[in-house]
């Protein structure tokens, strides 16, 4: 490629983080992120806000980049080992005997995406559905290696969110409504079905790249069609009631099959093939010239027609236990619907993570304040060791710790909007929100409970504003009280990862010495 205009030289900036202009931009970005951060935290935003706060704090502290990086890394190590430890005070074990904590966890994820535009009851409904669908994908009675099933999502536009629902089994699109009458007369016990993965349109694609010369009088189309009808005959003889093809079925074959009372579904698409084989036990057939082996047939139970708005669907129940389910998601318009779909996938992912690590972190900013208090206390107690391990002075180390803890607190404070201020209690170090800036004598009455809902305010408690000086203390663990359940929970795995990503990113940014901008 040629270039006709003169190339302008790159713009270079030394020590870009000391540059006022760049810092202003960072600050603006932080403000923007803060404005999107809801009361139920999202791990991506959490990471972004924490990262920017860490950069800002490191700059304000005036520490050398390398020292700040080392201190941050050391404190991250303290955080992760505390969070992973047995005696972590901001972690709760998930109880799989009740769906309540799973629903709370799902709700945090779903309500963290305001673009879905959900009301409070809608959020709860979707959270329940997400948990229901997730539980349906966990097989109950299979010993040995457990493999999770699948949630098939069907979106229906123009319906209220509360119409969304979850079914066990698979729902297939039924464009040809005229077969409905016949379906309804079908018995509901196990039916034989066949699943084709090759095209049945009458093309022979696997012959190769050579040329076929036809002499007059040879009609390959009818030869192939005859072969397809042979297949049809076998299927009829084997008493198949449902005929599904991933690709296109020749209209004549369709006609023939329907004439024999078989339900025909074509153009299934690749995505539904795996759930359908798991559901029915069928093995996809792609050979047209050999008899279909008996074991390739699958079974379904209880065919039923269901309609959602303009959609007519055939509902297939599994013959036995099966970890496949279908989630029908309804929303008022397309944009919100696609957001809802993404959120539900994310929720599914978060719920699946709980199987590997059955814990959750307290939400509502309580994990952040608690962690900040813990880090302050822990690092103060270990200051001589830390100083020698990091090779910095005590002052530098203290500055670094302060910056790190303030950054964590800043994330908690970012949850508050509308001029409310953030507080922390001096017993458990949980996060509280208060409408005014006045710290009164009778605060206990107006505060209610903390961000995650585990701690009730009491007159003997003391509070401090976030980002103000307070004597360091060891945050007390909560008494095991089964009757009090946290209102807000965050995914343990996702948040731990976000914490690590945030610190690592901040450290990378703090390590930047030179900026070269190509302005062409």
């Amino acid at each position, binding site marked *: 490629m040629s270039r006709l205009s003169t190339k302008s030289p790159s713009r270079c900036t030394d020590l870009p983080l000391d540059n006022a202009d760049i810092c202003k931009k960072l600050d603006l970005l932080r403000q923007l992120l803060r404005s999107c951060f809801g009361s139920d935290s999202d791990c991506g935003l959490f990471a972004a806000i924490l990262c920017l706060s860490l950069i800002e704090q490191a700059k304000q502290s005036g520490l050398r980049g390398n020292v700040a990086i080392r201190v941050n890394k050391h404190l991250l190590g303290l955080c992760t080992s505390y969070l992973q430890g047995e005696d972590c005070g901001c972690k709760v074990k998930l109880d799989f005997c009740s769906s309540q904590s799973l629903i709370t966890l799902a709700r945090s994820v779903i309500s963290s995406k305001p673009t879905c535009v959900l009301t409070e009851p809608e959020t709860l409904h979707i959270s329940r559905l997400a948990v229901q669908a997730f539980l349906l994908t966990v097989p109950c009675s299979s010993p040995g290696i457990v493999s999770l099933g699948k949630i098939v999502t069907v979106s229906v536009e123009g319906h209220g969110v509360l119409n969304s629902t979850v079914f066990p089994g698979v729902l297939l699109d039924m464009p040809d409504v005229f077969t409905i009458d016949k379906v309804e007369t079908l018995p509901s016990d196990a039916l034989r079905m066949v699943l084709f993965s090759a095209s049945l349109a009458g093309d022979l694609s696997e012959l190769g790249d050579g040329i076929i010369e036809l002499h007059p009088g040879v009609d390959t189309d009818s030869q192939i069609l005859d072969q397809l009808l042979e297949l049809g005959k076998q299927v009829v003889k084997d008493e198949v009631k449902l005929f599904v093809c991933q690709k296109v079925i020749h209209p004549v074959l369709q006609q023939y099959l329907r004439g024999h009372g078989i339900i025909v579904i074509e153009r299934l698409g690749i995505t539904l093939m795996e759930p359908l084989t798991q559901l029915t036990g069928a093995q996809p057939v792609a050979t047209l010239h050999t008899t279909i082996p008996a074991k390739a047939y699958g079974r379904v139970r209880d065919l039923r027609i269901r309609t959602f708005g303009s959609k007519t669907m055939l509902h297939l129940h599994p013959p036995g236990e099966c970890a496949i389910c279908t989630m029908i998601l309804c929303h008022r318009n397309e944009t919100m619907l696609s957001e809802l779909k993404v959120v539900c996938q994310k929720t599914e992912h978060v719920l699946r993570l709980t199987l590997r690590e059955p814990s959750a972190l307290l939400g509502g900013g309580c994990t952040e304040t608690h962690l900040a208090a813990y880090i302050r206390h822990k690092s103060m107690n270990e200051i001589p060791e830390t100083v020698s391990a990091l090779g910095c002075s005590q002052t530098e180390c203290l500055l670094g710790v302060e910056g790190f803890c303030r950054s964590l607190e800043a994330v908690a404070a970012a949850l508050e909007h509308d001029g409310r201020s953030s507080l922390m209690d001096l017993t458990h170090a949980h996060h509280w929100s208060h409408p005014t800036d006045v710290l009164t004598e009778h605060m206990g009455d107006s505060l209610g409970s903390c961000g995650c809902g585990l701690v009730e305010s009491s007159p003997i408690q003391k509070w401090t504003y976030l980002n103000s000086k307070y004597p360091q203390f060891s945050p007390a663990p909560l008494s095991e009280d089964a009757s009090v359940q946290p209102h807000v929970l965050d995914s343990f795995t996702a948040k731990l990862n976000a914490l690590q990503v945030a610190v*690592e990113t901040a450290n990378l940014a703090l390590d930047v010495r030179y900026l070269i901008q190509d302005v062409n």
Partner: protein
Amino acid sequence: MPPVERLHLDHVVQTVSVLESVVLRSFGPEGGQVLFTRDTGQAMLSRSGARILTALRLEHPLARMVVECVLKHSTVTGDGSKTFILLLASLLRMIHKMACKEPNVSHTYTSRQTAEASTARHLADNILAFALEELDDLIAMGVIPYGCCLSWEDFTAKKHLPGPSNNDCVQKLLTSFFHSRLGRSHCDFISKLTCELLTHWKFKRDQPSLSLEFVNDNLDALHTPVSGFPISCSRLIEGQVIHRDFATPCPQTEQKTVKAAVFSGYLQPKLLNAGQVLQLGCGEQWMEENSKNNRSIVQFSAWTERSLECVFANLQSLGVSVILSAVKQSAAVLSLAAQAEMCVVECVSENELSLFAQLSGATPVSDCWMVEPEHVATLTFCRPILLGAHRYVHVAFNDSEERVTVKPCSLVICGLGEGQTDQYTCAFRDAIRMLLSTWEPMGMTATTASKRTLQSTKSTYSHVDQIPNVPPFQQCRLQPGYVIPAGGTFEFLLHHALLQNGTSCSASDDTVTSGLAVSQLLANALLIVPRQIYSHSPRHFLQAQARFQTIIQNHSHPFSLVYKQEHRSIFGESAFPLEEDKLTKQADVSAKLFMSDSGLESVSCKYQLLLAVLQCLSSILHVDTVLHTHTALHTQSRRLANTSWEDTDDETED
């Protein structure tokens, strides 16, 4: 007439100094990242010298030439790009100073600048010639006694030996490398991981280079980049990861072993290849002669299906339950495989298949009609693995007779984003190359090549084949595998050795290009490296220099004597008596102690680096004119033109 730009020494010094100023930002313990951004939103963050220099997209032909030299060097040794530029700039400045002071007076030149250029060129050539002749001896005498030799056997032997083992030394060597490459935060973690990887991939009885070369060659297949996770999630996993998902549902088996076969082509035979013609419905007579049934196209496709069924029947009789394929198979193949309870993995890359073949010992099937037991690999498992957002196929191998010591494992490299994982991968690759050059017998490649270059530059118009006086490179004077504490030790020691050499070698010849001057120049130029390492505090530099002075004064005399004698006896014969080697090692301990907590650097890499820099120096000083050749479109800007540089060195030199 193309525009001609005469290159003056000032230009050369300036150009290289600009490169130096960029590279310096990420050099040494206080160095950091350089961030490149484009208005398109792309951004790249790097600390790697080679990457920074490549990303600069330079226009000046001389700068491009320098970068090319750096890249050539760093692809071989995997290391030293930043130091390369630093040394080059430092040497150029010294030569410039010297040439300005004393331009070559023995000839008549049209201008002072030409005279300066000539002196500079002469100096550069002399330094190169001197280095090619003397450097290995100087290093052997002045540097090696303070280092220690890593042995591959010890490194991979046992991990739980008391005291500092060789393993620690390799790890220290790697730590220094990753520190300069990726920064301090993660260098310990990654070097440990690399050591673990190498311990797993150790072929017993083999040369270290074989193991390293194996990892180097197969790194693409051996690693999986995963974005969105902190680097601390990087880990080793048993066996091999095939970077594809199952094409058919993977059946869960409780069986102890899994049998697999590798196919390089299609399982379903193609009836017609390109260019072949199938005639249908031609004369009845012909048909009857050949086959009574072949009247329909359907018969042909039925044949391909039947043959496929035979292939599967054969595979089933061999107990195969996993098919790895280089190509995408037909729907019929997948269907029959599912019916036969086999799982298929399609479109596996060539690298991965060849690694699989090496590890499993099974030969890939080329003709599906001839699947024999030697084509069947036995695996301990074959299952899906979720890495980041992708599902891959994870296989592990049965221990075989030949590789009792090798525990096949793959590397999962995690990073914040794709750019980061990519850099970590490159750093891994280069670390392996660096180790390879550390253990590579010195002088085998670098020196031979450079001696040739020298010959061709000395007599400008002669060709490489005309090398007259250089004997075939037989004496390898430096033992491979030597390491020296990092942090400027090599430069301090060599500086001292060069100065001593200068005073001893010649007092008679006192021109600027004499042995004395050349030694001194090189010695002083070397100090740029420690100076920059301690750039955050000049006091530390002076302290370090003083410390080295005392150490050298206290130890050098007896040491070098001992070494010289040994040196002669050892190198007189071709074999290396092990006992004597151990003796030197023990004698070294006291010298080593003072810097036991610092990282390590490879002497061999440093030596190769120095030679590469000197060659680059000599070749850029041989450029004196730049001819800008223009294509039609490039007439507007001279600077933009597709510049080509020409070695128009036609002046009389010798």
